[in-house]
């Protein structure tokens, strides 16, 4: 379980990533920027799972890449145990990366088809020889296969000989090889069939308990995120719009976007068709290259007023709930934040 009284293991402060839009071939000049991630802050505590949800294009995968330093942040800080890692390079970066590993979405393209499973899982040891087991590397790889529920005899097989769920287990074993503290999971189960999804989710929870891992769990499936997360952040168009405990977000959402998102999820319960409030949003997500002024959700929001176009709402506990000692008092970036129940359930 998360221990929020301890020091955060990862702290993200005002993280920004703008991808430049350029024109011209010889004389390239910047004509604008895609604001993929625009001033995001959150913390991750040891042993905790922080879920990040949002629709495609909201910037959640860019956040993952920024934390891994696969993309350079435009500005902002990523503090790992108090040290800013967003500007590290070379040997210092390599040392940090040992402790932050990633599990990717697509188990088909994220494993090299020409490498055996043993080579794939053992590769981290070649890159970080100081972390490699003394002596028999193979034995450690077999152990890892066993940990993720695969037959250790499969060590010499190739990825195409495995099903999607098994491949995702291989990806997880590779992520575990260096005994990291943080694993960033970008849509780890969205490519899997329903019955296999549950197997992988259960495995991830077991591994978390066993090794005390912290997960940053990025997904678009709100039900899975609720299941696995201690806290959840909701992103829209490069901004974090609401963040809080899973009960706060799912049972007491105060941001209109979160409410609409939850109400749109079809429940696997035909009796819930009635009695549940459905909010059907109009229109599409605006372009992140040219986001609306003020609140970014205002173009699709039923509560929007003039103030929303002029003033960007800050991510903080809404005034009306300040001091309240319940789950409803959590950070929400809306001028008119108000609790709405019966969106996630009847």
């Amino acid at each position, binding site marked *: 379980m998360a221990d929020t009284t301890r020091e955060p293991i990862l702290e993200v402060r005002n993280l920004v990533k703008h991808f430049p839009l350029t024109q011209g071939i010889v004389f390239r000049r910047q004509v604008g920027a895609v604001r993929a991630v625009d001033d995001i802050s959150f913390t991750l505590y040891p042993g905790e799972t922080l879920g990040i949800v949002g*629709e*495609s294009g909201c910037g959640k995968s860019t956040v993952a890449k920024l934390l891994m330093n696969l993309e350079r942040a435009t500005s902002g800080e990523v503090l790992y145990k108090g040290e800013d890692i967003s500007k590290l390079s070379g040997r210092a970066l390599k040392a940090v990366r040992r402790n932050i590993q990633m599990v990717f979405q697509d188990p088909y393209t994220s494993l090299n088809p020409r490498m055996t499973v043993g080579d794939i899982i053992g590769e981290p040891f070649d890159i970080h020889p100081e972390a490699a087991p003394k002596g028999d590397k193979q034995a450690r790889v077999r152990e890892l296969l066993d940990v993720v529920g695969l037959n250790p005899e499969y060590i010499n097989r190739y990825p195409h000989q495995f*099903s999607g*769920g*098994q491949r995702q287990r291989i990806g997880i074993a590779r992520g575990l090889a260096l005994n990291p503290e943080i694993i960033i999971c970008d849509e780890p189960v969205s490519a899997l*069939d*329903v*019955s*296999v*999804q*549950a*197997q992988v*989710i*259960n495995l991830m*929870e077991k591994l978390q308990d066993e090794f005390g891992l912290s997960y940053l769990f990025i997904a*678009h499936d*709100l*039900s*899975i995120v*609720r*299941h*696995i997360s201690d806290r959840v952040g909701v992103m829209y168009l490069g901004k974090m719009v609401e963040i809080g405990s*899973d*009960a706060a977000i*799912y049972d007491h959402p105060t941001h209109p976007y979160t409410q*609409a*998102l*939850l*109400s*749109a*999820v*079809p*429940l*696997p*319960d*035909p*009796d*819930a*068709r009635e009695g549940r409030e*459905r909010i*059907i*949003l*109009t229109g*599409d997500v605006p372009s992140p290259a040219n986001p609306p002024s003020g609140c970014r959700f205002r173009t699709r929001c039923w509560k929007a007023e003039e103030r929303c176009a002029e003033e960007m709402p800050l991510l903080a506990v809404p005034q009306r709930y300040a001091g309240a000692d319940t789950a409803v008092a959590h950070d929400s970036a809306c001028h008119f934040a108000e609790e709405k129940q019966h969106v*996630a*359930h*009847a």
Partner: protein
Amino acid sequence: MTETGIDLVKDGTAATPGTPLLDVRDLQIEFHTREGIAKAVNGVSYSVEAGETLAVLGESGSGKSVTAQAIMGILDMPPGRITGGEILFQGQDLLKMTEAQRRKIRGNKIAMIFQDALSSLNPVLSVGYQLGEMFRVHKGASRKEAKARAVELMDRVRIPAAKDRVNDYPHQFSGGMRQRIMIAMALALEPDLIIADEPTTALDVTVQAQVMDLLAELQQEYRMGLILITHDLGVVADVADRIAVMYAGRIVERGDVREIYRTPAHPYTKGLLDSIPRLDQKGSDLYAIRGLPPTLTSLPAGCSFSPRCDRAREVCVTERPLPVTVLDAEGVPVPGRSSACHFWKETLHG
């Protein structure tokens, strides 16, 4: 409806009352692969009435899409081969028709909506041209007429500023808008039956809700039969009247949507329902169906689900269970409800 230009009067070929709109009987399809013969569909039967929504639920490889392709007449043959069964549409067997006869039905009477709108639309033709094509080819409309009908259709599926966007190309539309164009195309000739194969899987939740609402509304308006093929238990619960659950090329359970969700009578259905996390409650451990679906080239002799089933006994391995009518607690048969499990009673009641 004249203001939308969509003519609702059907030509008088409707089947005699009593026969369902579509009746698939004991359909069998196999594929010739390098690994041997893959039995993709092994005796599937289902029927759809006008105005009704049947959800075909199954995971990848269960045969749900292949069945739909056979109904539509777009199955790749070879490697596919229909080895048995009938597909009766308004009382006539589609499998006995000539290709010319089937062409008259395809699009006109039975239309299909695909999962991936971007790859189903031609990228080098404007959406107006592609929508209008339906009227030019099937109804002999002029170019001008066809374009006007295309605009009406786009209005119908609520694409904003349809007049200005009719000459745009597919890539200029968002995913949700493209799926609306696919729906418009399917509706163009007012078919009696629509087959929607994972129509919202590629869309974000808020857009998915918009598209599903639109589809359900239009279906009611035109009294079409709808076959919804999906793996998403949430979408099914939201819109379906009846469900057929498929596993390894067979229907393992069928019945009214509420009854199946409340009291599943097949261990596979029960396992699926237990293995999805819920939005409205935080559960502890998820139930996970163990193992993997069987390979279609070597199906187990008895029940295909037996290697993964907690209830499996010896009889499950040796003897294939046939669908039996499910009885309720008082012993009365539940209409339209069946389960292909030796132990359906035990599954249903405990």
